[in-house]
């Protein structure tokens, strides 16, 4: 019997289809040899002077050597100058494309998959994220900083052969963020507890969806995951904002992230994936009021979405997903993959 499950935060229903259920090995990516012959150039290295550095972390003994560097994205869609200029046109709302659109180059070497970076390198990436969020938070026009990463092993599709993340700072809160905020707030109003803290507690108790745990973080297979092997990493200590995470915890965060990414790589033959960091928006407007419970009701987290199945049209149209991989089976599979960290 297939099951319908509801995401407790945003209220989205997902069909967990056991009739169509697949074994993990049915989802393993086939190696595409077409791209093996192509040796694309790395645009970042080849055209280094076209990328103007915004900020970087460098070797204190050798200033020439960078560890992590932030540059504006080429063809950036949002520009930092100008006013937001909200206006209406009949029914429609419009505003100028003001914001920031940056790339975080996560390694000086051509390492494509974040899973292959050393732990101390990933720590540095997190400190750079924190630096950028803090810096962008001082700009009163901006409401939200979205940090995300799209990884694909197919080098013919990559213009930069370095592991990298994207930063997008926006004058509005994105829809999914708003939904999470609304769901978390509603839960808090009734229970006076954070829904994410409750999820962590329940997942630790039940154990069936727990993939990995260390002193500061848990990685779980989401109860109502939309995609096979979808994962969420949550800090155990309640904290609404990623940039308030104490830097001494970065090592445990790097360890759990690297471990689950390696599990994907080893277990599913290096699939493409996306990572999105969800953190509370800047305290503007009603969120800046003392009565706002945002600090108590929201809990930052990371979503990891492997791209193993094609999303069909009705999922776009309806917001209703069919996941052919029961999250408990996914957790079991991932838990049993040894990555030797």
């Amino acid at each position, binding site marked *: *019997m*297939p*099951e*319908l*499950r*509801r995401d*407790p935060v*945003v*209220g*989205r*229903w997902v*069909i*967990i*289809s056991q*009739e*169509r259920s697949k074994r993990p090995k049915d989802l393993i990516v086939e190696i595409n040899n077409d791209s093996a012959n192509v040796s694309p150039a790395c645009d970042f290295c080849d055209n280094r002077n076209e990328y103007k550095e915004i900020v970087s972390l460098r070797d204190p003994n050798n200033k020439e050597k960078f560890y992590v560097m932030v540059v504006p994205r080429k063809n950036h*869609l*949002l*520009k930092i100058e100008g006013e937001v200029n909200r206006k209406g046109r*009949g*029914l*429609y*709302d*419009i*505003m*100028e*494309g003001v914001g920031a659109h940056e790339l975080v180059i996560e390694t000086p070497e051509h390492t494509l998959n974040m899973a292959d970076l050393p732990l101390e390198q990933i720590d540095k990436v997190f400190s750079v994220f924190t630096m950028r969020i803090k810096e962008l938070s001082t700009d009163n026009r901006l409401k939200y900083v*979205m940090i*995300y*990463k*799209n990884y694909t092993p197919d080098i013919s599709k990559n213009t930069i052969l370095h592991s990298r993340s994207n930063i*997008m700072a*926006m*004058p*509005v809160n*994105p*829809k*999914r*963020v708003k939904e999470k905020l609304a769901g978390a707030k509603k839960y808090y109003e009734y229970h006076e507890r954070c*829904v994410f803290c409750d*999820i962590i507690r*329940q997942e630790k108790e039940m154990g069936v969806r727990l993939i990995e745990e260390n002193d500061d973080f848990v990685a779980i297979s989401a*109860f*109502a995951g939309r995609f096979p092997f979808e994962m969420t990493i949550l800090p155990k200590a309640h904290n609404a904002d990623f940039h308030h995470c104490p830097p001494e915890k970065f090592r445990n965060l790097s360890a759990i992230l690297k471990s689950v990414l390696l599990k994907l790589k080893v277990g599913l033959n290096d699939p493409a994936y*996306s990572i*999105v960091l*969800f953190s509370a928006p800047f305290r503007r407007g009603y969120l800046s009021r003392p009565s706002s419970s945002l600090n108590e009701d929201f809990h930052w987290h990371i979503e990891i*979405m492997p791209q193993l199945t*094609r*999303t*069909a*049209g*009705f*999922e*776009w*149209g*309806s*917001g*209703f997903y*069919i996941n052919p991989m029961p999250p408990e089976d996914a957790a079991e599979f991932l838990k049993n993959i040894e990555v030797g960290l």
Partner: protein
Amino acid sequence: MTEFRRDPIAGRWVIVNHEEQIDPKEFSMLYPAVQKVNQDKCFFCPGKEWATPKEVYAYRPDGSPADAPGWKVRVVPNKFPALVIEGDIDRRPVGLYDMSNGVGAHEVIIETPDHNQTLADLSFEDMAEVIKAYRARLLDLKHDKRFKYMLIFKNFGLSAGASVEHDHSQIIALPMVPKNVHEELLGAERYFKYRERCIFCDLWQQEKQEAERIVYENSQFITFCPFVSRFPFEMCIMPKEHMSCLAELSDNALTEFAKALKDALKRLQTLLNNPPYNFVIHIAPVQNEYSEEKEYYHWHVEIMPRISRVAGFEWGSGFYILPGSPEESAKMLKQVIW
């Protein structure tokens, strides 16, 4: 110059990039044109009726018996359903989570007996028969009190999620209202409460006034590229008369809808070299005598060509980046002669 645009119904923001010139030829490098190669293995072809579950509806102009060749449109339960028809919903909690059994209907509408024909290539008359099948199934499934929502959609081409290449659409009857529909309902209700007008009626009239995003219009339907499109060449077909569900279509209006749908699919096929696409028919949930949806919801079709890759950012944020602008998409689609 880019701009942010907000969908007045769902509240979703999209970044529209005016500066970027979109070239349909360049897009067609990104996806293979949809081709049919597996006719001999196809279970949707006439003569293989035994291989599918028993039909629940068919259009048989020659009066041929059920589950035999002779049909022009055939509706069968999905052999690999995402939801099953028997059983109780049994809503229950798991700690703080909610779940229920996956009870529902999942049917396949085989749109043509000809393996190599695509929906866009059907004649108006045959297209109208496909839509009559939609209408008949909606009216029938409505009687099952367990179902709250019926979703009709089509995946065309592998990268749009089709697993069988013989042209077909699908209908899923669900025991709850899907999230995006729920959001549309809320948005439409909010507007209606204040203005006492249907937002969709206002929307198509504004589109008609501004004219620059209109692709096609006939006496009953209007096709346009939405002001807040998520994908290049996305189109919306809307009835001009206020109507909450496709099942309310009269035979006359149904013919006009067939013309509008064929027109839109033909334009896509011609301009983008038979691209993969999805369409979803948005209708009001199953109603009872107390429902007000009839007044403020207005059914429509969303057609989304699957020619650009959607990445993690869009998933995570519900925030879309549109290459080019809907105005430019509309201009190109309008110029197509088919």
